[in-house]
């Protein structure tokens, strides 16, 4: 079934910020905010918790490190310990560069992968824009529209007070 939203478009981030905080004080749930660039302070205003993606980086990086170490050790010491210039079979120091590179590579790719999954971004996904121009110069504030209208009214009120150029109701197509 289609959800209904109230979408307020702003031309400037300041009004948006004010609107967001006022709405939250008024206890109006905020679905999301759409902006052409990350507006500073908005996270706090919306109360978004800091992402936990760095932990993914740590895990993936460690994974890469362990794999690199294990693989090099296995090939050079166990699988065929060839005499290379009389060097010790386990030339650990010589293994360091590749360990580092694989740590970075797998750590980085893991993080990005996790981000794309978490943010549900994938090639061919059809974008869902509250209003046209959020990728250009429009800041959109979206609140869900529940049954009772007065809260919607309140929200509309607040948005307009904080300088929303336009406030309209939208439905998700599905």
């Amino acid at each position, binding site marked *: 079934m289609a959800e209904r939203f109230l979408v307020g478009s702003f031309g400037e981030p300041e009004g948006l910020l004010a609107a967001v905080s006022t709405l939250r004080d008024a206890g109006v749930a905020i679905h999301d905010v759409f902006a052409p660039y990350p507006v500073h302070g908005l996270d706090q205003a919306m109360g978004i918790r800091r992402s936990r993606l760095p932990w993914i980086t740590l895990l993936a990086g460690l994974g890469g490190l362990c794999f690199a170490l294990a693989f090099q050790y296995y090939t050079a010491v166990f699988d065929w310990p*060839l*005499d*290379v*210039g*009389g*060097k*010790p079979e386990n030339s650990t120091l010589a293994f360091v560069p590749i360990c580092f590179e694989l740590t970075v590579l797998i750590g980085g790719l893991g993080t990005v992968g996790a981000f794309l999954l978490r943010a549900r971004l994938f090639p061919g996904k059809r974008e869902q824009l509250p209003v046209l121009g959020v990728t250009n110069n429009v800041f959109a504030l979206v609140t869900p529209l529940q049954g009772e209208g007065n809260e919607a009214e309140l929200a509309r009120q607040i948005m307009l007070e904080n300088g929303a150029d336009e406030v309209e109701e939208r439905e998700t197509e599905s």
Partner: protein
Amino acid sequence: MNRRPTCEDAAPREADGDPLVQIGLPTGTRSTGFEATRRDVLSLMGFSLGALGLGAGCRAPVQHAVPLPAASIEMVPGVPNLYATTCGACSAACGLVVKQRDGRPIKIEGNDASPLTGGGTCAAGQASVLSLYDDGRLRGPMWLGNAVSWAEVDRHIRSVLDARGRDARDVVLLSQTITSPSTRALIDELRAVFPRFRHVVYDPLSLAALREANRRAHGAAVVPHFLFDRARVVVGLDADFLGTWLAPVEHARQWAQRRTAGTDRGFHVQVESGVSVTGSNADLRLAVAPSQIGAVAVALLAAVTRRMGGDDPGSFGAAGLTQAAPHAVAIEQTAEALVRNRGEALVVCGSNDLPTQIVVAKLNAVLGSVDKTVDLAHPSLQRQGDDAALPALIDDMNRGAVHALMVWGANPVYDHPDGAAFRAALNKVALTISFADRRDETSAHVHAVCPDHHFLEAWGDAEPVSGHFSLRQPLIAPLHETRAAEESLLAWAGRTTDHRSYVRAFWKRALYKPAAGAAAPDAFDDFWERTLERGAIDLPRPPVATHAFAADLEESVREIVARANRAGGDHDGYELALQETVGARDGRHANNPWLLELPDPITRLTWGNVASIAPVTATALGVSTGDVVTLTTETGKLELPAFIQPGQHRHTISVAVGYGRWAAGKAGDGVGGNAFPLARVANGLRTTSARVTVTRTGRRARLSPAQTHFSMEGRDIVQTLALAPSEHEHEHEKLPDLWRERLHGAHAWGMSIDLDACTGCSACVVACQSENNIPVVGAEQVRKNRIMHWLRIDRYVEGDGEDAQSLHQPMMCQHCQHAPCETVCPVLATTTSSEGINQQVYNRCIGTRYCANNCPYKVRRFNWHNYTANDDFPYNMTSPLGRLVLNPDVTVRSRGVMEKCNLCVQRIQLGKNQALLQRRPMADGDVATACQQSCPTGAIVFGDLADAGSRVSKLLAGRRAYRVLDDLGTRPNVGYLKRLTREEES
């Protein structure tokens, strides 16, 4: 042969194309080519299953195996056979053992059983196997320039020979010295057949003066057999006896035996104008102009006689030497040494100047060398040429006195100053025949060319030194429609015997002395078989009758003195000195790319000869290396690039003969310049020197040097050790090691190279090339510093005056145990084997060249191009015939891979396998590397360092042992023995 046939090749075509298949053997030589077959492509596309369904013919590269129609006991495919034979590369006739693989000779080795050479060979001998597969050889007889059948050419020749007038005019056989007793006998028989038969002998590099001197001095016109191993003091006058003169392999062996015999090292003085291999190894080298050699001999004689308190020097007119001979001090010192070691002294002189040779004969007589170090009774039978004979012959030809002329093993048009005259005179002869194997400068102008076999296809025998015999047997059926020259002669003489039976009969008749009493009927057969197997045998020969020295010494001395004074101390002009070099020799091997690309041990130049000029002279003339100069003598004129040569006498320009052939073949034509015409035949003797004027042309030539920098830059590369009386053993300091030593297998292969015994003769370089399928890259690539030799002989020069000291150092992969090359190879293409070999895996190599960059010895060689089956490099590896010389046990490297010395690992594996087959452990000496085997002086010793008792271990533990660039911590398994420097004799 190294190309795997694809399905397009029909089997018969393959059979024609590949002689191996013809003689019924699996195709041998291997390559690392990148050959994606159609099936590979398909399977790369992931359809390998589908591909299984394709027709068998086109699915995989089809190879064929064609067994012999009838099994042979002697020849097992893949198992090499060794046959003893006699070298035909020069008249020294060294004993050989030739490795025959799958029915074709692929490698020449010295015959240890030979009492003369004892297993050594020279560069030319090593390379002669390639001449067998030379594309330039004639495929059959020719009459008037057209290929014809033997029957036809015989008919023509017989008709002329039998024609009227033959008894009025001479039938002449012109040849170089023939050391084969059976052939000499055959020639004597011809005298009976042809009433007016004459045998004219000449040598491009003659010793006629020496023989004449001995005739006058001792009543026997012989070239003595010199015994260097019995001489503690050797004085060489213009005689490169270690490199090219007379019998270099034998001499080098004797010389080294003396030099390496413990502390009593002997003393070797070399007096010469240009730098020769011999000179570069002398303890004392005196640069002297050719015109002054005689004067030096006289001065030496004077000094010696004075010391011996014999007749007063004045008595033979040495006093008349107004201008003191050069190097007075050194001569006194030398005389002192000679006198102190009289009876163990030896003076050899290569000069073809009669008075000088008489003085030298006197010297040897005075010093009591005769019958001790100079054997006149059983002389050498080489260089029997008569310098006066050829000019006389030319006159006879022009007078029309010659009915038929047969030229055998000689090329006078090229290698004689009167060559042009000879060529013209050929037209005055009713019938001219040549036995040459190609249409060379001479045979191109004769009526009939009756190509002789290559010596590896022929029967024969040789007696290079009276009493020392050796047999020759064919290693392969004649490749072409050739016929032994002896057989041709026999045929024209109306005899039908084949050569083999002739030789055999001769030995039975003339040489075989049945053991007294019990003469079993088949005794000779045994004798024959045993001799064939052994290759060489000594048989008693009646000694040549000689008498004590009785020549007119005064006259000779007077002449020398007069000449020396005429030349004067202050040379107004320059003198030319013709030299023989180890690669080119007298030019008969000129089409052999191995020899053309062999860097001369002295100049380190390949592909051509130069005019060697002393540094001071070069400055005076304003020329530098590479400037083309014109050398003009009264007999000829030659343009050659100049080469600045420290050690060269300042008034002498040295030029190597043997280059400048114009009808040698594809490889040899037009390489360098022909210097033979520059010297003339003067009063019955061929000279090797002349007055010469040098003029700059202003042009520059592009040389192809294998080495461009000769200074050691004060680094400890070639180390020397003063021969001190105190023989204290010093222990080698062990360098600290960062790492725990790696575990090794049962062996640790290593090599020791004695820099005191190595003469730089370069036999090992060619041996290595022949054993390891090393490609020839040509002058252009050598110029780009891309020569492929795995084993090179570096030459370092100390000083740039006439007393400059040369040092030779064989340099190949040092098989480091801490190899810098291995650590940097990304794909593990080079690693250390469990037996200490630095192994290079061609098929794994991707060619980053990092290893070569990181090799401090710069011994790694990269295949910059595809050198096989590539028309840009038209040498033996590109011709189907030439590829027959390749060693089937060694991979032929493809373009883009690194290669280098691997200590002849194929020989090591063979040795291990033989030990395995015989169920015994390996013994020291089971394996000899190609370089070691070929070395006439035994300077190279290969063996197992893990076995403390092995020769190499002992040598490398000695006080002379050291490793090159040891301070880099590379831990080489190849070590060197320091060259010994002689303290002043006093």
